């Protein structure tokens, strides 16, 4: 990971966390390196059980690394108990104190820091304003809706002005529409406060729309770090490609390499260009990944890069996904944006060609 000109807020250096012992030992995290910049909206993305929560807990101080160290603005925070770390958390379940009102919840951190009463009052008012919850300040937390609870949890964590805010799947319990709204809210708050956000999700769409950078995790390790665009369009390995978005995998053979681009030969004999991850040197049989929206259907002809038979058609609202059984036997999905003039124009059982424009293929490491 390059150390950029920006200042690092959090540095994770070779952090591992093992649970249990002997045969039952579980590697929740295995040698993770990460640098999270100040003022960054940084997302940890990965399937259930990959170690996202574990990493946040290590940063917050509820748990300790088996090895490795964590630096906050360059300082090792190992000796600090959680209540001395300038890091706050928005818990997945919100963890609002049920015996306090909305305002009392928000004031809690400041009160614990021993801040004077008037600072407390103004800061709470400010926070309520920020999350648009002023009218509900005196409600019990059981009397507000899920989305409102989420905002209170956010306000509570922001009130003590932490250097870093950890958010553990804060939106996963919300319904679809509310989740979209809260995504926008969170982005706005991050922009307004300038606090570093470390955001955990297993929803790839959420990660893509919200993040400055994403770390894709799997089974306790970070597979790839990069901007949403890098992650989506240039996945380095099969896991990342598969986890983010819909994907077509094709077995190909590397024909030649020129600079940052390679030429690969498809089963059909056609050759297309393909990009490949930095510091790799692909050769022989490799897998390439092609996103469904980067392929287009056409009449079967010699121009078509691939050809096959339409197996099923899935209407997605914005788009339609057309699953094509290739001549080689594998399934290839093409995604095309819907116009409003009616169904997509293809039908099941129809023989079609697939056209791949240049620069749509990425070679995977594995």
């Amino acid at each position, binding site marked *: 990971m390059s150390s950029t000109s920006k200042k690092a807020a959090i540095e994770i250096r070779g952090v591992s966390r093992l649970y249990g012992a002997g045969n039952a030992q579980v590697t929740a995290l295995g040698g993770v390196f990460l640098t999270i910049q100040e003022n960054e909206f940084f997302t940890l993305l990965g399937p259930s059980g990959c170690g996202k929560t574990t990493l946040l807990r290590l940063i*917050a*101080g*509820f748990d300790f690394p088996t090895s490795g160290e964590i630096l906050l603005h360059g300082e090792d925070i190992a000796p600090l*108990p*959680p*209540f*001395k770390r300038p*890091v*706050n*958390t928005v*818990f997945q*379940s919100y*963890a*609002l*104190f*049920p*015996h306090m009102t909305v305002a009392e919840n928000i004031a*809690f*951190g400041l009160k*614990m*820091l021993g801040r004077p009463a008037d600072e407390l009052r103004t800061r709470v008012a400010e926070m309520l304003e920020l999350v648009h919850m002023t009218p509900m300040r005196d409600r*019990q937390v*059981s009397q507000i809706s899920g989305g409102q609870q989420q905002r209170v949890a956010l306000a*509570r*964590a922001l009130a*003590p002005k932490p250097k870093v805010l950890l958010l553990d799947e804060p939106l996963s319990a919300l319904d679809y529409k509310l989740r979209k709204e809260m995504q926008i809210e969170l982005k706005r708050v991050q922009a307004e406060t300038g606090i570093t956000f470390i955001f955990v999700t297993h929803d790839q769409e959420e990660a893509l729309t919200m993040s400055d950078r994403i770390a894709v995790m799997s089974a306790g390790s970070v597979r790839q770090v990069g901007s949403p665009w890098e992650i989506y369009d240039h996945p380095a390995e099969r896991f990342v490609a598969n986890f983010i978005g819909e994907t077509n995998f094709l077995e190909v053979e590397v024909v030649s390499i020129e600079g940052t681009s390679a030429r690969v030969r498809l089963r059909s004999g056609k050759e297309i260009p393909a990009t490949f991850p930095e510091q790799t040197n692909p050769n022989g049989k490799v897998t390439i990944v092609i996103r469904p929206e980067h392929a287009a259907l056409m009449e079967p002809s010699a121009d078509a890069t691939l050809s096959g038979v339409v197996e099923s058609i899935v209407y997605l609202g914005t788009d339609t996904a057309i699953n094509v059984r290739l001549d080689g036997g594998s399934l290839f999905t093409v995604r095309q944006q819907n116009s409003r003039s009616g169904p997509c124009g293809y039908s099941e059982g129809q023989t079609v060609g697939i056209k791949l424009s240049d620069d749509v293929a990425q070679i995977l490491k594995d």
Partner: protein
Amino acid sequence: MSGAQQAAENARRRDIRNRWLLSAPALLIIGLAGVGPLFIVLVYSFLAPGNYGDVKWEFSTEAWFNVFLQRDIFDNTLSLADAHVSILWRSIKLALATTVLSLILGFPTAYFIASRPASYRQVWLFLITIPFWTNMLIRGFAIQEMIRNEGLVNTVLMKLGVISAPIQMLYTDFAILLGMAYVHLPLMVLPLYASMEKLDFRLVEAGYDLYATRFQVLRRIIIPLVKPGIIAGSILVFIPALSSYVIPRILGGGKNLMIGNLIELQFGQGRNWPLGASLSITLVIIVLAAMLYYVKNAGKTGGGHA
């Protein structure tokens, strides 16, 4: 009424009827042998004492009069029934002290158990209840052996050179307190544990995350959250402690009566059943009032039942 409405109404009625049927055996048994007999006691409190115990079937408010007022046996002046009031007051004080002591001991214990790995909690809980299998009298004597002047505690302390002469513990209020806390401890620990086991430790985490120290987390988060358990445990300890009479007699030396002993005296050697009955009803009323007060306070914080 539509078919669906009819069905809904029928279902509701059936549900309520079933609920009454299901609770009937419990209500019946308690009515017969737990609560119903209280009416006998109530009736007796308005009768005249029999010559050698029991009652004479003639209406009298004498007993109720005697609960709080007394006519001096020597100068016939009327005054507050000082003896009854001070016995009652001491009983309340001791019961409160017992409740507080068992809370002080029981809270950390319950917390300790609740924070063990799930598979060990049952074992620890059973350890709390096992002493219950020994009769209370025997436990009382066992404690006597601990704290008497030549008992284990004094002997050990003297051997260790901490003290040079035995400390008088037996037959003191301390002994009563210790003994009552001892025999009632499980009644405190069990409901406390029940609510602590449900304690959401994520809230504790949130507390630490928001800069609360260990003590602040305890005071501002854990205690308010397990309040229903604290209340349930306190009630379960306070009530039997208030009317207990075996332990005060064995360990307190019986020099000072507790309300339970006073009532027993009236039904026994005192042979004044109506007075015993009216004292009993008084005690029940006090207990119910304390209950109501507690429960109301519990309601205020929105806590449920343990």
